[in-house]
């Protein structure tokens, strides 16, 4: 009889201990979670302004496509209630209300959505007006990959996501890994080739210093536009002829007229037909300084494989 009772008590104790342990762990976890949500997040945005976000925002608006993409890649897409007119990825974003561009944002429509937090670019015209109405605004404009890393961390923290730092780093690592994979698949004959990337009509080139340039560098290509010339300079067409790139990347529409450019028939890329042209949809992916730079890299590699068949 005593042995049975002791065993009962032991079992009970064990059970209580187990319960206690798990309860304690739950409490700790909950506490940590709560703490995460309760601790105000402070960041300095790209205007140099210090912004304090006290609690997790429930309704978020982004006015720059890359920022919206980052929010969705951090698995917080459900928080978005409105985007700008150029945002079109992922699918869910297409159903959100569109609030205009950076310079002609529809103020009333935006305010009606009652956002807790608005992410926009540094050069947005509506920033001051929103702040004067008491809406919290964070201006972020990633120009380089380093910027992107920082911005991902800042957005994750601002949204008060659970384990924000880890999530952000995970996303960043994933992007970097995909970039490495893409770089590895670049055909050997293409490595070290000189490239001219035209980002906009009128000889606007993406230089080595831009985020597009950084991707190209990752892929082992040499940009004819050096960092000293700026990120997106407007170059003299003669300069391109002299630099004689072996590969040219540009938009589809401009690529059609390439042969008409005076003196350009001498360029190796044109003579050898090593031209990569992007459709407007593909241009969206490549030109945005968001998490899809890995997809951009893959597009570039796919083209490289086409023009350097091994």
């Amino acid at each position, binding site marked *: 009889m005593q042995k049975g009772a002791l065993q009962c008590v032991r079992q009970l104790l064990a059970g209580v201990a187990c319960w206690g342990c798990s309860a304690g762990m739950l409490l700790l976890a909950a506490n940590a979670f709560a703490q995460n949500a309760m601790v105000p997040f402070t960041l300095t945005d790209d*205007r*140099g*302004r210090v912004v304090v976000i006290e609690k997790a925002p429930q309704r978020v608006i982004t006015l720059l496509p890359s920022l919206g993409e980052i929010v969705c890649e951090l698995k917080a897409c459900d928080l978005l209630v409105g985007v700008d007119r150029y945002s079109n990825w992922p699918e869910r974003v297409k159903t959100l209300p569109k609030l*205009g*561009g*950076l*310079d*002609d944002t*529809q*103020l*009333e*429509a935006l*305010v*009606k959505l009652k956002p807790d937090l608005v992410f926009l670019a*540094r*050069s947005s*015209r*509506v920033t*001051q*007006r929103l702040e*004067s*109405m008491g809406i919290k605004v964070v201006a972020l404009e990633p120009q380089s990959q380093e910027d992107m890393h920082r911005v991902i961390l800042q957005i994750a923290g601002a949204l008060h996501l659970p384990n924000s730092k880890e999530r952000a780093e995970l996303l960043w690592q994933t992007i970097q890994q995909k970039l490495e994979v893409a770089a590895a698949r670049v055909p050997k004959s293409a490595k070290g080739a000189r490239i001219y990337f035209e980002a*906009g009509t009128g000889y*606007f080139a993406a230089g080595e210093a831009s985020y597009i340039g950084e991707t190209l560098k990752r892929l082992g290509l040499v940009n004819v536009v050096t960092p000293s010339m700026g990120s*997106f300079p*407007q170059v003299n067409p003669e300069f391109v002829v002299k630099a004689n790139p072996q590969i040219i990347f540009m938009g589809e529409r401009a690529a059609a007229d390439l042969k008409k450019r005076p003196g350009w028939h001498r360029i190796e890329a044109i003579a050898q037909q090593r031209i990569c042209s992007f459709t407007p949809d593909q241009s969206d992916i490549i030109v945005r300084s968001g998490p899809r730079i890995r997809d951009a890299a893959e597009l570039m590699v796919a083209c490289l494989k086409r023009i350097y068949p091994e």
Partner: protein
Amino acid sequence: MNARKVASATNLAWQLGLLLLLLLMAGALVGSEGWAWAEVQADASLIVDIRLPRTLGACVAGALLGLAGALAQGLFRNPLADPYLLGSASGASLGVAIGMVMLSQIDVSPWFVRVGITGMAFMGAWLAVALTLVLSWGVQHTLRLLLAGVVVGVVFGAIASLLLVMFPQIQGSVQSFMLGSTAYVSWPACALMLVVLLVSWVVSVAASPLLDGLALGEFTALSLGLPVKSLRWVLLGVLALCTAAAVAQTGLIAFVGLAAPHLVRARVKGVHGKTLSLSCLMGAVLLGGADLLARGLMAPLELPVGVLTAILGGGYMLYLMRGMISKPAGGRGGGT
């Protein structure tokens, strides 16, 4: 006595005043969904925070531009004069371009951020006019003033274009400023413009005898004992102030300054004290109406308000000109 013409001026004032009141009320009702009664009950803060300051701001900016246009036409005795003729438009654009470039740099001084784009536009407009006055070596020679204004306008415009080429990322913002917009006017901005308007209006009306005298010629004005030189400085200063204040808040809106005085003079002939005040009202109605149409016609899309001022003002002017062409040249039908 002058009873008939005075009644006409007062009539026009009442008509415009009534129109203005209607515009202000309509402004509260036109929102991002077009005309909507139900919304009024639903969200009062929308009306108070966004729609009212915007409508009022458009009206006050229009009044500033109307006054500036009337001053410009009176000072330069030129019916084609508009508020921007002393280079203030290019000055404001350059200020905005410089401001955007500075704000896009990494370590921007907090002073710049506080001044903001509106402050830069204001200072740019002022500096351009000041430079024009310096280059023309005083205010006495209107031709020199006009030429200096053209030079300053062209040079500042070229520098702004250079900045746009060097920093293509600011192109969109500067272009949208040049197009003009009443969408982001806040209550403090409204109050500021209203103060400028009141001060400018009082000073202009007080100095308006100069414009009347100048209508008869510079020598006649001098012989009537008017301090022509000092009054010219004063009115040019007011012109610059009004233009800069309007441009800083709403960007470059064309045509209001040019059309408002003409529209007034087509209805009412009289001394400048009256036509200046009426130009204020006319400008307010013009820009207020254009702002209403800009957001109401194709809601939630917004049309550029500058396009609508051109259509409204230009359309009315064409209508008046048709009347001018079909009527025989007035008076006793020519001849001595």
